């Protein structure tokens, strides 16, 4: 029952620090603004279900990644074989593998060596990303290894996350959370947005901007089979059903864009101005110089937006794209272009959006319910245990403040189920004090002296309290591990509450009782 002075100070200090940590979160927003920045940083985050906002889970179509790798390897092999003077034929990408025949069987060995050189070691095991084998003497087959595809997906996901990050930031939305989940998913959380549809369009857009010269002979191309090296695309400017033939080879693509902004064209209509990076500017200048008076096509997602005439060489690396844009769509396109192209298509597989009004309602009702719950429990404890109930109540209030303080320190997220966890903790936190007080009653009934009864009550009850809390911690930990956002918030409050309530009920309440008993030296206890 004896608490040395240093212990009292130590316990007091722990409590004071925890309560102070919670203070910035409890102050109204206007008062919080007066605090220094480091103090404002210690605060509880509100979950999307309280703050309002959108939670999107995006899944990458990873089949794309393997197909794209196959296509770029096809290009690479074509170039490398030509450079080495190896003639090949029957290049095919069927069945997810690249295969080709070597015209001169004597060169099969060299071709296989060149193909093998294109493979790289990837990952932790340094396994090759392609496997090369020779079939029937002159047929080279290249297949993608598991490790190679995994590495490519990992790279694609990493850059997809960066692209989404840039797109959301460029669109002016604040504080998005973007994290990779598993091997092929990205979680995007944006608080307080008005229009989740716009967000989804912005994120999911795989813009593909290309500049191509028009085909020389439009009539034959449009009449029947387009000549080799050309293709026919829909033409937006030409009206319903209009088509136009362009060359397959792009002059320059959207990947070479340094910056893009929404602007207005000479007719005052919304447009997008773009600035190429240095390689893009050079390519654009070279092609326009060589093709003055010819037309080129600006192609967005395989639709020709416009096909202007090259009046003079474009040397500055600037271009303007107009079409039937509104200010919003022009802005979205500008953002998508300057943020870079998504390397892989992403689909929304889960969406949860909460309106800000509902979130505000939930906070208000949550505060009312928590206060009411605390008040009823405090009254109940006072009626049941009198003075000792008040010690428990002081521990209870301290417990609530400490939970807030610790959550603020870790910048934990408070969700709506988290508020339920808080209320549950208010009820359950008194459990320890109930166990102790009941034990003291029992000891008194057995005829022990006041001091002995109090002392024994605490000693005997401590193991039961700790045991009981372990089961709750197990359940809480699993809830955190398997749960998604809001449920995790519930688990966090529950587990922090278990720890703080054990501290406040066993240590703090005991200290208060000890100090009180030493001061008043009661001969009998009303309990």
């Amino acid at each position, binding site marked *: 029952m004896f608490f040395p002075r240093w212990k009292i100070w130590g316990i007091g200090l722990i409590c004071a620090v925890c309560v102070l940590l919670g203070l910035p979160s409890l102050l109204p927003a206007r008062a919080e603004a007066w605090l220094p920045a480091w103090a404002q940083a210690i605060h509880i985050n509100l979950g999307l279900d309280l703050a309002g906002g959108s939670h999107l889970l995006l899944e990458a179509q990873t089949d794309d990644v393997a197909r794209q790798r196959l296509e770029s390897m096809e290009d690479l092999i074509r170039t490398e074989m030509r450079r080495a003077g190896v003639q090949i034929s029957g290049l095919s990408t069927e069945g997810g593998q690249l295969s080709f025949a070597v015209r001169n069987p004597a060169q099969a060995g060299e071709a296989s060596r060149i193909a093998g050189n294109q493979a790289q070691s990837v990952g932790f095991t340094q396994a090759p990303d392609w496997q090369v084998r020779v079939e029937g003497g002159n047929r080279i087959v290249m297949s993608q290894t598991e490790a190679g595809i995994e590495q490519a997906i990992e790279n694609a996901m990493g850059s997809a996350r960066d692209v989404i990050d840039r797109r959301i930031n460029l669109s002016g939305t604040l504080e998005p959370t973007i994290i990779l989940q598993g091997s092929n998913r990205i979680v995007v959380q944006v608080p307080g947005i008005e229009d989740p549809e716009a967000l989804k369009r912005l994120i999911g857009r795989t813009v593909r901007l290309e500049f191509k010269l028009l085909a020389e002979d439009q009539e034959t191309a449009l009449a029947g089979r387009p000549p080799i090296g050309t293709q026919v695309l829909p033409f937006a400017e030409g009206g319903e059903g209009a088509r136009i033939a362009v060359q397959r080879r792009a002059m320059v693509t959207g990947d070479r864009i340094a910056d893009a902004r929404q602007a207005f064209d000479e007719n005052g209509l919304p447009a997008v101005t773009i600035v190429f990076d240095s390689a893009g500017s050079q390519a654009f200048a070279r092609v326009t110089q060589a093709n003055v008076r010819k037309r080129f096509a600006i192609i967005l997602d395989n639709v020709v937006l416009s096909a202007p005439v090259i009046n003079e060489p474009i040397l500055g690396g600037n271009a303007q794209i107009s079409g039937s844009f509104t200010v919003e769509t022009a802005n979205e396109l500008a953002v998508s272009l300057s943020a870079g192209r998504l390397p892989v298509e992403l689909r929304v597989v889960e969406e949860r959006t909460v309106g800000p009004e509902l979130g505000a309602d939930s906070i208000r009702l*949550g505060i009312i319910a928590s206060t009411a719950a605390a008040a009823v429990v405090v009254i*109940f404890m006072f009626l049941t245990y009198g003075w000792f109930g008040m010690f428990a109540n002081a521990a209870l209030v301290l417990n609530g403040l400490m939970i807030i303080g610790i959550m603020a320190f870790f910048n934990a997220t408070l969700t709506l189920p988290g508020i339920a966890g808080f209320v549950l903790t208010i*009820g359950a936190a008194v*459990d320890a004090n109930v166990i102790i007080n*009941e034990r003291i009653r029992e000891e008194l009934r057995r005829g022990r002296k006041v001091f002995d009864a109090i002392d024994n009550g605490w000693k005997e009850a401590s193991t039961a309290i700790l045991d009981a809390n372990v089961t*709750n911690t197990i359940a809480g930990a699993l809830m955190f591990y398997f749960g998604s956002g809001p449920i995790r918030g519930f688990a966090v409050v529950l587990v922090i509450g278990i720890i703080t309530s054990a501290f406040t009920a066993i240590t703090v309440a005991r200290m208060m009782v000890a100090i009180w008993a030493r001061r008043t030296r009661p001969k009998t206890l009303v309990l």
Partner: protein
Amino acid sequence: MRLLKLVPDNTNIDFLRWRWFAIAISTVLMATSIFFLATRGLNFGVDFSGGQMVHVTFQQPPQLDELRERISGLDVGDPTIQEFGSPTEISIRIPRAEDETVEQANAIASRVRTSIAENYPGSRIDSVETVTGKISQELAWDGAMALLLAMLGVAAYIWIRFEWQFGIGGLVSLVHDFIFVLGFYSISQIDFSLNAIAALLTLIGYSLNDTVVVYDRIRENLRKYRKMEIEPLLNLSVNETLSRTINTNTAVLVAITALLLLGPDVIYDLTIGIFVGVLIGTYSSIYVARFLLVPLGVGPDSFVPSDPLSRAERSRNEGYDGAQV
């Protein structure tokens, strides 16, 4: 000042006498729960069945039939339209069509939104949840795993901390509570969602919390009163811890009641599950967990320590308590 005592001092209720009555109650509760689970099943929310859930707050209470017709007219399958807390708050649940893509689901959602905005000016879309089939299966799997591991985890803890009879006793009482709460979700047809999983996990923690405190006392008494028969000893332990069980659970119940009555409707499915769980947990820690120990063979000789030191300690305790009684 006279203190409030929900349980009077020195109770000596013969709980064992009512054992058969309790067995009958438990059997009826279990049979009813299992019957409803088998016939009616759980009303899985979008979390576990996929689909879309839209919450709307209207300015005036809408005609539900009219609203249902308007939404059905949008070619969105068979929507479920329910009041949600108050007559102006409505939840619209749109089932997931087979092999529906996300784009289609989004298109449906925006049709619903536009229709509501046109026909009910001033109404407010509070929340939209869309879960595709694959994700809902993963969520269901994760939820089931969490529940299973939590049960095994706490039972293992009791087994390590106490003896195997207590482990089994705790697990059986836990399964008893668990099936009852599941049955409650089935009978009431309240949405069974992630919140319900959280309620069940809470139940697992708290139901055993009670059981642990009780088992602690039973073990203590087994060591103290070596000569006492097991049945009166269990009765004594129940009576000794009765006040604690009642007081703690009263405190938890009043706190949860405050949340049920005053808190946001959005987490009603969570709080009602916790409420029912605490109620059944109180009952089961008095009856199911304790009296199961008799058929499991816990007797006066169960916890005789073999080393002489603790034997000496025990005899000291016995002598001491003998003087008290």
